[in-house]
């Protein structure tokens, strides 16, 4: 079943990406990237490595984190439920099968697309800083999220109010998606909503780059908002998780600005990169 879902996701993304590259990025940038991609890759290598390391740690932690979490974590399901009660049942009044289908596909496909497309789009920019910031922000989201997941043990609304949510619970209507999400997350990892924080991060970047990609900006905002709402509509996250996701996104966007370009490779590795750094303004920042 996992293979089936993965194929579906790959297929949808495989169709969406080339179309969006043509629509949002344009030929001119593609041509320039073709000429410069080696240099850009070299500049971006450290931050790509950092992101990969964070993702790898995330992956490994999936095995060890539950036991650690059991020892140091705080149980907050009841607290969340006490604070916001049946807030997310608000969506019950607008519930329709069409809306459920929309939010389910946004949650799985829209989200994946939202995360992957900016990586390509910002790689196409001659100024590599945006790309590096985006990847740094992703890494921060995952890293901080992982720490919070270990410290806070909480089940989402679907685990507390199954009967009220049954018509639109993602895993009741589309049980196959649970094979995908359990690859990524344990069911006690709800605070904060990483779906929300990563989507909001992408929307924030889309806003910063709207002069370069004017058409992408509204799409990103609508998609990001849909993802955030979908997590509540589908009963996966509490309103509190989504709020925390927005705060996390803001923090990661700000931090990425502070961190990226702070350490220069030429400082770290001597003049081996000298020739390269001539062409790259960011490496001279400290000078």
């Amino acid at each position, binding site marked *: 079943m996992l293979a089936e879902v993965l194929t579906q996701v790959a297929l949808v993304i495989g169709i969406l990406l080339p179309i969006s590259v043509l629509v949002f990025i344009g030929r001119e940038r593609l041509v320039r990237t073709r000429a410069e991609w080696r240099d850009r890759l070299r500049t971006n290598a450290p931050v790509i490595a950092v992101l990969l390391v964070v993702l790898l740690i995330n992956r490994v932690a999936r095995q060890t984190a539950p036991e650690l979490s059991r020892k140091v974590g705080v*149980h907050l399901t*009841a607290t969340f439920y006490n604070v916001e009660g049946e807030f997310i049942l608000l969506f019950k009044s607008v519930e329709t099968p069409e809306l459920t289908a929309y939010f389910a596909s946004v949650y799985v496909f829209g989200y994946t697309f939202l995360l992957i497309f900016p990586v390509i789009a910002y790689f196409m920019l001659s100024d590599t800083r945006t790309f590096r910031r985006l990847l740094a922000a992703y890494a921060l989201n995952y890293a901080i999220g992982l720490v919070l997941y270990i410290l806070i043990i909480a089940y989402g609304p679907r685990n507390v109010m*199954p009967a009220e949510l*049954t018509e639109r619970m993602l895993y009741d209507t589309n049980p196959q998606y649970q*094979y995908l999400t359990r690859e990524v997350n344990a069911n006690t990892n709800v605070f904060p909503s990483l779906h929300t924080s990563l989507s909001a991060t992408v929307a924030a970047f889309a806003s910063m780059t709207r002069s370069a990609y004017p058409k992408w900006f509204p799409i990103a905002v609508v998609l990001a908002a849909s993802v955030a709402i979908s997590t509540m509509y589908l009963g996966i996250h509490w309103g509190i998780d989504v709020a925390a996701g927005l705060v996390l996104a803001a923090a990661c966007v700000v931090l990425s600005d502070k961190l990226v370009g702070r350490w220069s490779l030429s400082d770290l590795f001597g003049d081996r990169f000298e020739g390269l750094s001539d062409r790259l303004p960011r490496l001279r920042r400290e000078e």
Partner: protein
Amino acid sequence: MNGGPAAPNRTGPSDGGPSISRRSALAAAAGLTVSTSGCIRQVRDILMPNNIQQLSLTITTLPADSDRQSIRLSRELADVFETVGINVSFDIRSPVDFHRTVLYDHEFDVWIAEHPGGTDPDFLYEALHSVYTDESGWQNPFGYTNLTVDDSLETQRQLEGEKRREAVTDVLEQVAIEQPFVPICIPDQHRAVRTDRFDWDERALATPQGYLGVDPAPDVSTLRATHTDSRPTSNLNPLAVDYRGEDPFVDLLYDSPATETADGEIEPWFARSWEWDAGTIDVRLRTDCPFHDGEPMTAEDVAFTYRFLANMRLDDAEAAAPAPRYRGLVEAVDSVEVVHRDRVELRIDAGRPVGERALLVPILPAHVWRERAGGANGPGGATIAQETAEAVATENVPPIGSGPFQFAERTEGEGLTLERFDGHFTLRSDVDLPAPTVDELTVRVDPPGAAAQRVVDDTADVTTSPLEANVVAGVDQSGSTRVLESPSWSFYCLGFNARDAPFSNPRFRRVIAQLIDKEWLVDEVFRGHARPVATPVTEEWVPESLEWNGTDPETPFLGTDGEVDEAAVESAFETAGFRYDERGRLRVRQ
């Protein structure tokens, strides 16, 4: 102020001093409530003018992913409790965590979940005898202590036939009056199976034997199970209470001297036969049976198992650490003697029906488990925390048993593969017992919502976890998929922590029991796939006085159709000695 037990005059809402959390109030009160002499009570009243306050109780239960019915029962009951002036909060924990919290740490007010129950009512001895209040495991997690009930529980163990039935009736009636836990219902056990690949025995599926002796269709060599609980992929230790749920896998990996049928009959297994003679069981074992690692399984291993389960520290008799599982069964065994390589003699302190149940424990290979003795000794000396013993804490992978299936591989959280153990005695031509009929038994962990569909899609042959009540009716039976119903004896219940006030008070517990509309909950939460019960035993043991007659004969619901009659509840609590304030909050001394 005379410091009378009820002290009703100070219960108004106007006493707005600092509120004390329940735990700290409990901790502070613990030292003082030992003696209830008037003098001390007065001192306490001065020190803690606020110790009578609205009753807050926490319901400890499982998330919907693990047990949809438990969380639904909990929320329905929380609504009722709130209506009658009780402040309710939840503590929702994963199965492993839930069992550690309730069975090891005893950190709960009330819990709502499924109790494993038993085919024989003797499981109540383990569940309620007061000598077990300080132990870890399914032995008296309630902390319930009552010498009269202890006495009745002991009496039924010694008897047989009609006399035992009468003694059991005594136990059940006393327990129904006392309500140390409130049995709610016994859920039906439904499983989706593929009938084109295997010939299933509906009744046998209630026990691990149901997966043996199943005739496969030609060319079928793998039995594909779908399971909704991932715990067996993490841990295969027969003694780990926190990891053992309703899975048959560990029982298929280990042999026991005898097995139990769905009807509660004890039948020979590794024991060829036995003779019962006035408190002694003379057991003849099968010969030339190896463990999965090739070592021979002999009477020494059987004797070791009983000694080990009675004390996981073996030689250290001063600080015995009994195993947290099989406690009630092993309790009956006074001593074990190896008479011969294939013969052991058990001295039993119980009548035959209970005594023979001692033969149901899994046989642990001495050469593996002897090394696991101890570990309970912390650096600071002896501790009686059984759960920290190496033998309980180990995940036991790969497991070395002697059962009809042996461990092949596992992927944590995803699946488990067992393969037929060719050295098993059931495969011998002269043994007429259900044997493994497939080369391989594969287990895949699936979400509860997807399990039945995998059988319909022909990617699985059986849902080893019973189906959730809400999916039973929706299973597509047009093809070769069928839904089978097996006998069941596990029951949903609300368990009290009788160590703490007010749950220690049977009058209080009885009123709580009357807030539970079992009949309505069975319709609402279980969609009718359960039967409401007043006593937690199989139908053949239910005495006439406790038969379900449309309502609970002992603690009838105070209301109709799930709606409580608030006035009736208020007066019931007041009759029981509790008070309400003018804002309708139930006030108790906690």
